[in-house]
């Protein structure tokens, strides 16, 4: 096999700096929105005492989940020894770090008292899965950073496999942890399901890879390098498998819930009567995020179409966003049942009523700011580090 050469992302200045300043602008707006929410208080958002976690949390969880999945390519390359994926390892690690940082930023800036972040860093309650997640996240930065180092620096190359293994297991733990944030909420029927944690893992694979394909294609386009068709086809097929698995897990999730009689109410709500949530599930998650991408990925008509792969990846991300929206917000909107066999006919606090939530603009801006932070980190990282191969021409001496 030919020796792989890596080079910094070094593309024509206007294109690079233009893109970067656009990202910077989005970040500034996001920070402004966060400051506005923090300064006036959360009353300016759509969140309330009924819908406690809103759009920022959907964005944050989306990015965090995608982050651990983005590392998948590196894991396949070095842990499972897939030669086609190997040269993509460094970029995959960089993307993982970027996505996680963006997600965490959104999460932190939405805190009621973001000024007390130091408290979150110094006083812990080890029973809380949130606390575990703080360690999982910081550990992720360290381990993936080290992994990136072993891939970039020949002096420490011999540690690549063990560190790669560590990163692989760490990120499984991380996604399980993120999923468990919901799994532990026994009080809310929508979240009281063991399948949530593995479902989050498979979701992470799918969103992470979609992000990876999109950023990879754009980075290569930015720098005018070539990306071989066979390599892309590999990634594309993998994405297809993941998208299918996510749909399968969603099916299992709703089917098992149907077995549990107490959960029938919330099931009916999400699947049939939930209005916007039902639409998001069927149209957003299933059609846009599942059926159409599968068609684009597997239809022979689009076998070598770059546009089809990019579109499919984008749709997977949009569908994934809706899926999390339905889980996070739909799950809260459905009223908790406190008195089985009784109907709440009056309450000053919306008991027994489906809660309404209209996301506000600042929340959305903060969320997009988070995505922009991720992308900026990747763009800057790719320019400073040797993470992108000079060319990803299909190897000639290798069977695909």
């Amino acid at each position, binding site marked *: 096999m030919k020796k792989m050469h890596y080079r910094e992302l070094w593309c024509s200045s206007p294109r690079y700096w233009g893109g970067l300043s656009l990202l910077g602008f989005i970040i500034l707006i996001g920070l402004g929105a966060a400051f506005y929410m923090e300064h006036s208080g959360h009353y300016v958002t759509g969140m309330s005492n009924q819908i406690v976690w809103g759009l920022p949390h959907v964005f944050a969880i989306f990015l965090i989940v995608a982050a651990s999945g983005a590392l998948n390519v590196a894991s396949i390359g070095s842990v499972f020894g897939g030669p086609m994926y190997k040269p993509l390892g460094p970029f995959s690690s960089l993307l993982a770090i970027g996505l996680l940082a963006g997600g965490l930023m959104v999460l932190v800036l939405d805190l009621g008292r973001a000024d007390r972040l130091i408290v*979150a860093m110094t006083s*812990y309650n080890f029973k*809380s899965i949130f606390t575990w997640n703080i360690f999982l996240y910081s550990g992720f930065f360290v381990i993936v950073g080290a992994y990136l180092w072993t891939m970039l620096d020949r002096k420490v190359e011999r540690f690549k496999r063990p560190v790669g293994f560590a990163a692989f297991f760490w990120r499984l733990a991380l996604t399980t942890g993120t999923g468990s944030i919901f799994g532990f909420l026994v009080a809310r029927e929508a979240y009281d399901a063991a399948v949530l944690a593995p479902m989050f893992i498979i979701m992470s694979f799918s969103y992470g890879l979609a992000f990876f394909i999109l950023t990879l294609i754009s980075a290569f386009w930015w720098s005018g390098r070539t990306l071989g068709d066979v390599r892309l086809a590999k990634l594309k097929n993998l994405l297809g498998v993941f998208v299918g698995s996510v749909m399968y897990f969603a099916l299992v999730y709703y089917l098992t819930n149907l077995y549990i009689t107490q959960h029938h109410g919330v099931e009916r709500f999400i699947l049939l009567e939930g209005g916007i949530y039902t639409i998001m599930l069927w149209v957003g998650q299933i059609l846009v995020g599942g059926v159409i991408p599968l068609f684009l990925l597997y239809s022979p008509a689009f076998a070598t179409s770059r546009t089809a792969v990019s579109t499919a990846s984008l749709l997977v991300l949009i569908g994934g966003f809706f899926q999390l929206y339905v889980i996070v917000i739909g799950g809260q909107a459905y009223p908790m049942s406190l008195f089985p066999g009784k*109907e709440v006919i009056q309450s000053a606090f919306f*008991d027994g009523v489906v809660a309404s939530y209209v996301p506000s603009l600042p929340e959305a801006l903060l969320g997009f700011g988070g995505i922009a932070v991720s992308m900026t980190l990747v763009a800057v990282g790719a320019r400073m580090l040797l993470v992108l191969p000079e060319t990803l021409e299909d190897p000639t001496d290798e069977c695909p």
Partner: protein
Amino acid sequence: MSKSTDQPEMNRREFLGKTIVAATAATVAPGVLLSVAKAGPEQKGVTSDVRWGLLIDTNKCADGCTSCVDACHTENGIDLQEKPEGHSDAMWEQQRVQWIRKVKLQDKLTGEQTNLPLMCQHCEHPPCVDVCPTGASFKRADGIVMVDRHICIGCRYCMMACPYKARSFIHEEVANQLVRAPRGKGCVESCTLCVHRIDDGGTTTACQDACSSEGHNAIVFGDLKDPNSDISKALKEQSSRQIRADLELNTGVRYTNV
């Protein structure tokens, strides 16, 4: 390093404080070490010999009466908080703080109606405490579940975890407070069983007082561990239940006739 203040500006303050202290350690050290709170014999603090709880007789709870809610709001200064200017009523209804609320139920089969006040149930195994990342959500030795609002970061995970929707987040600035009930933007709060009264030796909560001065006497507050307390006697006499008993949280608030 010792844990110093955890409010904002900590690092710099700690640093400055430390250098100043270092420079003058010799003169002040003895004073520093000796000056603790004047925790005399009358100030024992909380003990686990007691567990505070409430018993609510829903038969006595009157339809349309909100005196317990009103009393709670006055006692804790919740009514001092105003709707932010230009904010819609619908949003304010969803965002305003409620430590206690009235709920009216109807049996789906018999049509029988029940009224009851619902507040923090002061669980023995509170899910809100389990999930809190900083330990701000905590259970005092005497069973009262509270938020230490000095270390609450406003993540609202406890609100997600609470089966009773008993907690509220303060969505806006609070201009007016009572001395006994500090409260402000960005933290989560809930019923404290009128902790300021209990610590000062009080034997009633504001909601209970209000209920009995209305002549309903639907709320009994007391020590669940003292077999001679009114609440323990009442619990012995009639069958009561916990809301969401299936979660096995062993709540400190019990209901009869639900």
